[in-house]
C-alpha cells in the first residue's frame, strides 16, 4: 500500500509537469485561425503594394496637399510631395510590411506597428498617385471635415446596433430606421419650421421602427435578420408611398425643413487647421460624440448595461437571477431606435432639409458593417465609422480632382473597402453569444 501510494502522486506530478510548458508554448504557437488572418492580411497588403508599383506608370509631376482653404483666416502652406519617389517609398513600405506579416516574425506590438505603417503608406501612396500632376491641390482640411460629417449618422447607427446586438437582438433594419426618421424630420420640420421639433419627430420615428423590431423579434420570435430586411422594405415602401402621394405634390409645405447651422465653439474653433475641422460642426455631430461616451458608460458602468450584456451573452443565466430578458431587450432596442432616429435626422437636416426617396443609400448597412468590424464595442465601432467616412469623403474629393479612376468606380470605393476590411483584416469575429437567438422561457 505504501509502495503504491506515491505512485499516483508521481503520476499526477508528471502529468502536470508537461502541462506547464504546453501552456507557455500556447503563447508562441499561433492558432490556425490567427495564422490564416495574419496571412490574409499580409497578402492583402502585398497586393496593394504591387498595385502601387503598377500605378508608378501613370504618376506624373508632384502632388500638392492644401492644409487650409481660401476661407481660412490663418493660411497654412500647401505641401508639395514629389509624385514618383513618394509612391515608390509607399509601395516599398507596403511590401516590407507584407513580408513581415507573411514571415510570421512580427508579433504583438510590432504587428500593430507594421499594420499602421502599411495603412499610412497605402493611404499616402494612393492619394499621391491620384493627386500627382493635377491642377488643384488635394484639400486636406476638407477631407477631415467631410470625414466627420459623413461619419456622424454612421456613429449613431452603429451605436444603435451596439445596444441592440449586445442585448441579443440583431438589427439589420438600421437603414429602415434612418429612412423613417429622415422622412419624419423632413415632414415635421417643414410643418413646424423648427429644428428641435424635427429632431424630436425623427427620434419618435426611429423609436417606432425599433418598437416594430422589438415586437416581432422579442415577442413573436421572428428571425431577426429576415425581420430586419422586411422592416427595411416596409420603410422604403411606406416613406416612398407617402412621398409620392403626399409630399411630392406639395413639396413647399411638406418637404422644406430648416437646415442645421454649424455651432463654432468659442476659442477652440479659431485654432488653425484643427479648429475648423473639429470645433465648427452642427449640433448632431456634437451629439454623436456625446452619444459615444454615453453609450460606453451605460454599457460598461451601469447596472442596466451589465444586464444588457448579460441577456446578450447568456439569457438563461440572466433569467435565473431574476432579470427580465424581454424587458431588458425591449429597453435596449428602443434606446437604439432613438439613436438611429438622431442619425436619420442628420440626412435631412444637415444637408438640404429635403427628403428624396431612398436617400440614405445604404448608410444603415455601412453602420452595420462598422459595428461588426468594431466587434460590437462602441468606441471601436466609432473608429470604423470614421474610417468609412474617410473613404467616402476621399472618393468624392478625388472626383473633383479628375483622377485617372472613373467617378462611378470611386463611388463604390467605400463598399469595396468594407468587403476588404471584413474579409482580409477582420476575419472571424465573435458576436455576443445570444445575438439573433430569440429567448423562450
Amino acid at each position, binding site marked *: 500500500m505504501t509502495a503504491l501510494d506515491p505512485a499516483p502522486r508521481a503520476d499526477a506530478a508528471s502529468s502536470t509537469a508537461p502541462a506547464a510548458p504546453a501552456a507557455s508554448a500556447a503563447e508562441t504557437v499561433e492558432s490556425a485561425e490567427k495564422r490564416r488572418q495574419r496571412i490574409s492580411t499580409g497578402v492583402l497588403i502585398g497586393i496593394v503594394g504591387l498595385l502601387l508599383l503598377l500605378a508608378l506608370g501613370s504618376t506624373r509631376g508632384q502632388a500638392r496637399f492644401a492644409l487650409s482653404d481660401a476661407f481660412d483666416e490663418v493660411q497654412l502652406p500647401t505641401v508639395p510631395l514629389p509624385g514618383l519617389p513618394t509612391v515608390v517609398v509607399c509601395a516599398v513600405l507596403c511590401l516590407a510590411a507584407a513580408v513581415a506579416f507573411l514571415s510570421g516574425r512580427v508579433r504583438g506590438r510590432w504587428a500593430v506597428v507594421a499594420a499602421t505603417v502599411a495603412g499610412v503608406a497605402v493611404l499616402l501612396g494612393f492619394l499621391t498617385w491620384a493627386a500627382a500632376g493635377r491642377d488643384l491641390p488635394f484639400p486636406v482640411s476638407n477631407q477631415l471635415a467631410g470625414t466627420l460629417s459623413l461619419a456622424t449618422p454612421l456613429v449613431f447607427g452603429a451605436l444603435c446596433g451596439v445596444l441592440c446586438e449586445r442585448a441579443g437582438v440583431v438589427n439589420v433594419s438600421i437603414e429602415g430606421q434612418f429612412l423613417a426618421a429622415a422622412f419624419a424630420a423632413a415632414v415635421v420640420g417643414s410643418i413646424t419650421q423648427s429644428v428641435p421639433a424635427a429632431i424630436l419627430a425623427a427620434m419618435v420615428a426611429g423609436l417606432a421602427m425599433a418598437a416594430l423590431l422589438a415586437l416581432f423579434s422579442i415577442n413573436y420570435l421572428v428571425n431577426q435578420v429576415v425581420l430586419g430586411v422586411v422592416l427595411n422594405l416596409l420603410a422604403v415602401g411606406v416613406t416612398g*408611398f407617402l412621398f409620392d402621394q403626399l409630399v411630392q405634390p406639395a413639396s413647399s409645405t411638406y418637404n422644406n425643413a430648416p437646415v442645421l447651422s454649424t455651432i463654432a465653439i468659442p476659442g477652440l474653433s479659431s485654432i488653425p487647421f484643427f479648429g475648423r475641422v473639429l470645433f465648427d460642426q452642427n449640433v448632431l455631430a456634437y451629439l454623436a460624440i456625446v452619444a459615444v461616451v454615453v453609450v460606453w458608460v451605460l454599457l460598461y458602468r451601469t447596472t442596466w448595461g451589465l444586464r444588457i450584456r448579460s441577456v446578450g451573452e447568456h439569457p438563461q443565466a440572466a433569467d435565473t437571477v431574476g432579470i427580465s430578458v424581454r424587458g431588458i431587450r425591449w429597453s435596449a432596442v428602443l434606446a437604439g431606435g432613438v439613436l438611429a432616429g438622431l442619425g436619420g435626422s442628420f440626412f435631412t437636416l444637415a444637408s438640404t432639409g429635403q427628403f428624396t426617396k431612398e436617400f440614405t443609400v445604404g448608410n444603415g448597412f455601412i453602420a452595420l458593417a462598422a459595428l461588426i468590424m468594431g466587434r460590437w464595442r462602441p468606441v471601436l465601432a466609432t473608429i470604423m465609422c470614421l474610417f468609412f467616412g474617410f473613404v467616402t469623403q476621399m472618393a468624392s474629393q478625388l472626383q473633383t480632382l479628375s483622377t485617372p479612376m472613373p467617378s462611378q468606380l470611386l463611388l463604390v470605393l467605400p*463598399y469595396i473597402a468594407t468587403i476588404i476590411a*471584413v474579409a482580409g483584416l477582420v476575419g472571424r469575429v465573435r458576436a455576443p453569444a445570444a445575438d439573433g437567438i430569440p429567448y423562450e422561457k
Partner: protein
Amino acid sequence: MSTTTGPPRPAPEAGRRARRSTRFPWTDVVTTVAAFVLAFLVGAVLMIVSDTDVRSKFTYFFDRPSDALIASADKVGGAYGALLAGSVGGYGPLTETTAQAAPLICAGLGVALAFRAGLFNIGAQGQAIVGSIFAAYVGFSWHLPPVVHLLVAVFAGLVGGAIWGGLVGWLKAGAGAHEVIVTIMLNYVAAGLLDYLLTTTVFQRPGRTDPISPIVDWSATFPRLAGGQLHLGFLLAILAAVFVWWFLERSTTGFAIRAVGANPHAAATAGMSVARTTVITMAVAGALAGLAGVQAALGPSASGLPIPLTAGIVGSIGFDAITVALLGRSTPLGTVLAGLLFGALHAGGLAMQSVAQTPLTLTTALQALIVLFVAAPALVTRLVPFVRTRKAHASGPVPEGGLAS
C-alpha cells in the same frame, strides 16, 4: 414531400410535423389569408391618410360622416379594384402577372436555396444586376444564329450571377467574412459597375450621351405568345424551380447543403466540406438570381423589344426576392406560388398607378406587410379572433441565429 422540404428539426417535433402534414394545413391557409387581409387594411389606412382630398372630408366627419366614408371607399376601392383588374382581370393581365412573376421566382429560388444552407443571401440584387450585364452584353454585341444566340446569352447571365454569388461563398468560406455584409456591399458594387459600364464605348449606345445600352438582338429575345406577355422566361422560371427541387432533394450536393444548413458541425463531422458546400450553394444561388437578371435583360416588354440596359434595369427584384423566399417558406413550390402572388401584386400595381393614380410604392409596403404578418402567425391570431390559435414557430424556413456565425 413536405416533411423533407421543411427545415430539419429535432426528432420528436419532426414526427409531429410528419403526422400533421398528412392533413391539409388549414390553419396555415387561414392565417396566411388573414395576414393578407390585415396587410391590405393597413394599406387602405395609408391611402386614406395620405390623400389630401379624402383627409379634408374627415375634418367634418361628425357632421356628415357619409362624405368621408364614401370618399375613403372610393379611394381604396378604386385602387384595389385597379390592382385586381390589372393582375387577374383577363388574359392580358394574367400574362403580365407571369411576366412579372418570372424574375421574382428565379431570384426567390436563389435566396431560398441559400437559406436552406443556413446562408442569408441578401445579394440577389447584385447577382441579378451582374447577370443582366452579362446577358445583355452577349445579346447586343455578339451576333449569333437564332437559337444559339439565346442559349449563349442565358448561359452568360447564369455565369455572371454565379461569379457574383460564388465570390460571396468564397469570401465566407475562405476568410470568414459574414455573408450579410458582403452581399449587401456587393449589391452596391454591382450597381456602381453597371453605372460605370454604361459610360464606356462597349456598353453605351452609339450616338447617345445618357447611360443606355443598345437594344438586344431579336435573336436573343425571349419568344412570347401572341396577345400577351407570356414568354419563355416564365417557362425558364418553372424549370429553375424543378431543378432546385431536384438539386435539393435528389442530389448528393443538395443533401450536403441541407445537412450544412441544419448543423454545420455535424455535417463537418460526417465528412462533408462545409467550405465547399458554402461556395457551391452561393454560386448556384447567384446563378439563379442571375437568371432573374437575364429575364430583365432579355424578356420582351409590352412593345415586344427587350428593355435596354439602364441603371434601373432589374428594379428591386433582389429585395423582393427575399420576401418571395420567405413567403414561400424556402421550398421550390412555395417560392413559385409566392412569386406568382407578388408578380400579380406588381402587375396590378402598375395598373393601379396608371388607372387609379395610386403610386406603385404602395405595393412595396403591401409586400413587406404581408411577409411581416405571415412571419408572425401569433400576432395574426391575436388580431383576428376567429383564427384558431396555433403554436408559433420561431422562424419556419430560415436558419436560427443571426450574425452570430
